């Protein structure tokens, strides 16, 4: 370890044979290129053209080996890559969860190993050191874990004794107590769920669309056309207007009924005998008629719990609960991202379920706060502008100047939306949680434990500045999907700044 201007500079080098492995990685991509070049060169009688191509790989490998440095800094593992475009990476010892060594046959022949350093952020290794001698790899692993223990011990961390391998599966041993059932969905609930769910409407459209694609519009016309013309179209044209409307409506209703029927069947098959139970530290869901699925959700991985209520949910007095999980994809038997905690449940069951999903967090009487007082005006204006932009051009095109009359037609909806959105959207901060309820037609409540917050972002676009508002967005380790962003828009500027400050305390 060398110091430059008081900053540590890594000095340890890779194994002298590293270039071979750098080559081996890129070799696969080079082979077809080399063959093509060889064939071309042979025809032209100029095999020497191949020489720079063949040299390219080893030279790149040698360059990488020559400039790559790693070392044990005071705080973390230091890795320097590149010389022209230089990058000095530091991985804090306390964050390192895993150091894997990988050896293929070639590695074993040459007595070396690839070393992968991983933190808990998931999504691949933070550093791949390619390659070190086996002894060097072991030394690195020992050095890193010794420093990690020392640092964690200094700070009185309880995980000082935690084994590095077990760290990935942290959370303690599962206790042997019997699993505690939390939620069971009988067939009646599943039928309700199918009725509420709208996904099949989309699928039905897709099926009909693809049917048209497969069968072909022309074939359909050839087969059905004459019949339609003879029997239907002529007949339809003779019908009265009222009958035509009835016909169209009947078709729409028929499609809806079929879609809902499909949806109910899917729900019955997919979520047959849905049981959610607590098993030690985990939540476990089992469901499925033909394929029985068992999904384990590890409670420490739950980042945000969402409560969802669409208009149909509210009609049947039901809600859906979903959880955003951290990473997760790396562990078998666990799907990353979003998981339904309860595909459907009664509102009075929600509290108990959230208590299980986010244990030990106090949710007692939150102090709900509204959005900025200017939200209503801003949303009404926004909707009016959108309405004007969408409806005015066609209206003017069809009716000329009298078409301007469509403009006030959008006013009631804009006023209603602005009023209801501002009324139903609210947030609350409790000692442990941030709660955010959004929307009036589709309502979504996000429950975010404050200790899961990764970063806080305040954003102001030109409209926000005009209305003296700020948008506050919270990032957690789960919830990359756009729908699940926890984004508190239309906050007063000072309120947002204060909230951001208190969220990070």
């Amino acid at each position, binding site marked *: 370890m060398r110091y430059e201007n008081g900053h540590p500079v890594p000095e340890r080098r890779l194994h002298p044979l590293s270039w071979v492995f750098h080559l081996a990685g890129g070799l696969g991509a080079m082979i077809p290129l080399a063959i093509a070049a060889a064939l071309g060169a042979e025809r032209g009688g100029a095999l020497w053209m191949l020489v720079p191509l063949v040299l390219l790989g080893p030279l790149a490998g040698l360059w990488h080996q020559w400039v790559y440095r790693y070392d044990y800094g005071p705080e973390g593992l230091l890795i320097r890559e590149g010389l022209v475009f230089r990058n000095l990476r530091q*991985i804090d010892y306390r964050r390192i969860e895993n150091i894997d060594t990988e050896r293929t046959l070639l590695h074993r022949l040459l007595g070396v190993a690839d070393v992968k350093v991983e933190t808990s952020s998931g999504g691949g290794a933070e550093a791949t050191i390619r390659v070190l001698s086996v002894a060097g790899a072991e030394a690195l692993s020992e050095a890193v874990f010794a420093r990690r223990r020392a640092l964690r011990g200094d700070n009185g961390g309880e995980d000082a004794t935690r084994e590095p391998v077990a760290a990935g599966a942290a959370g303690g041993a599962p206790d042997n107590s019997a699993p505690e059932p939390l939620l069971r969905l009988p067939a009646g609930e599943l039928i309700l769920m199918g009725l509420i769910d709208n996904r099949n409407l989309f699928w039905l459209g897709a099926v009909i669309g693809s049917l048209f694609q497969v069968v072909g519009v022309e074939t359909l016309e050839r087969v059905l056309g004459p019949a339609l013309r003879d029997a239907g179209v002529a007949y339809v044209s003779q019908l009265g207007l009222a009958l035509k409307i009835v016909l169209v409506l009947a078709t729409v209703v028929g499609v809806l009924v079929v879609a809902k029927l499909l949806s109910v069947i899917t729900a019955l098959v997919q979520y047959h005998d849905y049981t959610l139970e607590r098993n030690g530290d985990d939540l476990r869901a089992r469901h499925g008629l033909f394929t029985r699925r068992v999904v384990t959700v590890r409670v420490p991985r739950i980042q945000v719990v969402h409560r969802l209520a669409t208009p149909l949910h509210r009609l049947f007095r039901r809600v859906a609960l979903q959880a955003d999980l951290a990473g997760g994809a790396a562990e078998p038997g666990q799907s990353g991202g979003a998981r339904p905690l309860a595909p459907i449940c009664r509102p009075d069951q929600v509290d108990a379920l959230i208590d299980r999903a986010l244990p030990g967090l106090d949710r007692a009487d939150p102090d709900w706060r509204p959005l900025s007082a200017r939200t209503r005006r801003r949303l009404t204006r926004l909707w009016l502008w959108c309405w004007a932009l969408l409806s005015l051009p066609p209206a003017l095109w069809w009716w000329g100047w009298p078409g301007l009359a469509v403009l006030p037609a959008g006013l009631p909806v804009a006023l209603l939306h602005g009023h209801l959105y501002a009324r139903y959207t609210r947030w609350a901060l409790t000692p442990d949680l941030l709660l955010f309820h959004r929307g009036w037609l589709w309502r979504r409540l996000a429950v975010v434990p404050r200790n899961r917050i*990764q970063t806080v972002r305040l954003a102001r676009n030109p409209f926000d500045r005009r209305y003296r508002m700020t948008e506050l967005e919270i*990032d957690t380790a789960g*919830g990359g999907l756009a729908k699940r962003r926890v984004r508190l828009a239309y906050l007063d500027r000072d309120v947002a700044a204060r909230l951001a400050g208190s969220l*990070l305390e």
Partner: protein
Amino acid sequence: MRFEAVHPGTVAVWRVQTLVGVAVLLLGLVAVFAPLLAGGALALPALGVWGLALLVLAGLGWWGPAAWYRRLRYCLDERGLSVERGLLWRHRITVPRVRIQHSDVSQGPLQRAFGVATLRLYTAGSRFTVTTLPGLDHDTALALRERLLREGDGDAV
């Protein structure tokens, strides 16, 4: 919170970068359209448009980095690092110390000539996994990272 500006040398770096970008774009347009328009009736107007584009883009390339520099600020406090930036769309991202998984300090040849570097902080988040603070003095970037990590502690996920 007391925000600090980054190294002024970074304006020069960005200017060189944007002006080179503009030059490449405009020369590329010349290479594509010159053979098509040469000698035609549209050659003169096209040249005029090209000249106008050159003036506007070069002006933007010169003025933009300076304006962006004025809005780029950072603040290191006991909670973590806050970065504020943006001209029209203004953001302030705060990364708590305890959330930083690893960090990069990188420097290209142009940046090295002006003594600036880019600091990147990685978290385990899902949308804003990387927070970038460009244009720092190289030593400041390293010192900032040391200070961030030395006092940071605790569970990162």
